[in-house]
């Protein structure tokens, strides 16, 4: 059997080799995808140190469970889901130690946005993509973790409502509600950032 050319091998080949217990191919996989996994952790946790720890934990879990990976999805999708689960776990623990966020209370009582008039927001009219990304990132930072998470999972991970509901351990109705308020709030923040920029 030919020796695996690790730097040039496809992810799938590396995974199959790593599944046999070889660590070198796994190290290559970590190197290839560590930024993506870290970025996902950071987008959810908004803290560099915590994101670093969780991303590393995800790689450890990935190794421990690698034999159960059946190649039904891409390796990065699989790893990202592990990372998301760890982030949600982490956030839940953190949330338990805090009082309910204002966003959550607003959701339950009706919230400001329910009464808010629809605002015309057209973000892409004159902004560069990278500039818009930065602005969205800044706006995401201001969201509660529930709103940020639901947006990340739906908009960036392309997860369906029912998948999000499972991940976040809530009903589909709650997902719909959170997503709605998250979008409204994000729009509001983006408008205020735009105004700040223009003034």
């Amino acid at each position, binding site marked *: 059997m030919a020796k695996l050319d690790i730097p040039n091998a496809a992810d799938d080949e590396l995974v199959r080799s790593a599944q046999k217990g070889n660590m070198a191919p796994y190290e290559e996989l*970590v190197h290839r995808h560590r*930024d993506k996994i870290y970025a996902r952790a950071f987008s959810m946790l908004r803290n560099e140190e915590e994101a670093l720890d969780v991303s590393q934990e995800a*790689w450890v879990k990935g190794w421990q469970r690698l034999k159960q990976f059946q190649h039904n999805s891409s390796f990065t999708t699989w790893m990202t889901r592990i990372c998301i689960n760890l982030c949600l776990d982490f956030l839940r623990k953190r949330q338990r130690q805090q009082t309910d966020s204002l966003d959550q209370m607003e959701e339950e009582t009706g919230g400001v946005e329910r009464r808010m008039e629809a605002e015309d927001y057209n973000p892409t009219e004159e902004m560069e993509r990278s500039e818009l990304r930065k602005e969205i990132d800044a706006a995401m930072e201001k969201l509660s973790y529930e709103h940020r998470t639901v947006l990340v999972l739906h908009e960036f991970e392309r997860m369906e409502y029912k998948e999000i509901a499972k991940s976040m351990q809530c009903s589909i109705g709650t997902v719909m509600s959170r997503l709605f308020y998250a979008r409204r709030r994000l729009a509001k923040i983006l408008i205020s950032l735009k105004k700040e920029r223009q003034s």
Partner: protein
Amino acid sequence: MKQEDRLKIQAWLDGELAPQESARIADLIDNDLEAKELADDLRAIQKALEVGEKQTVLEDSREFYWSQVERQIEAEEPITENTQPELVSGSLGNALRWLIPVGSLAAISALMLNFDSINTTPDLPKTGGSKIENPQTNPINSPSGLAEGAGTVMEEESPATPEVGVFSFEGTQNGGNFASPEDPNTLPESIENPER
């Protein structure tokens, strides 16, 4: 406009609405100004988010990052699934788990019946005998069914035992439990079948 309709407009835009409901919502957006404005707003946000996320890059070197992951892997590696040695094989162990108490009970019953038959005291045979025989003649009333003998007990218990095994096996194989990140055992399996 009702909040329910607002959420349905959003679901319609996300492609999550059932076909029969979709027609109604599409009609609502066409004919109701508020609904149309809301749909436009939500579309604008969707469009904004389409540009994706800000790129975040790790500052640690490849070697340093991997060394930390590797250290954690090695630290957790010694954990094995079976920490206690099994004295007997699984099926035999299960059988013995029931056979031993059932056998003991049967032996005690036999001894007591024997004792009953050889007892010379006139009162004892009636009262003592009925107390022991009751569970055998009326197994439904027996709290555990143990008095029925090993064969019956195994028949009753054997379907239940594999069910437990099947349940836990399915829990990890199908892993629908993506929703339970606290349990790391369910993590990867749930990811195996992403629905999208």
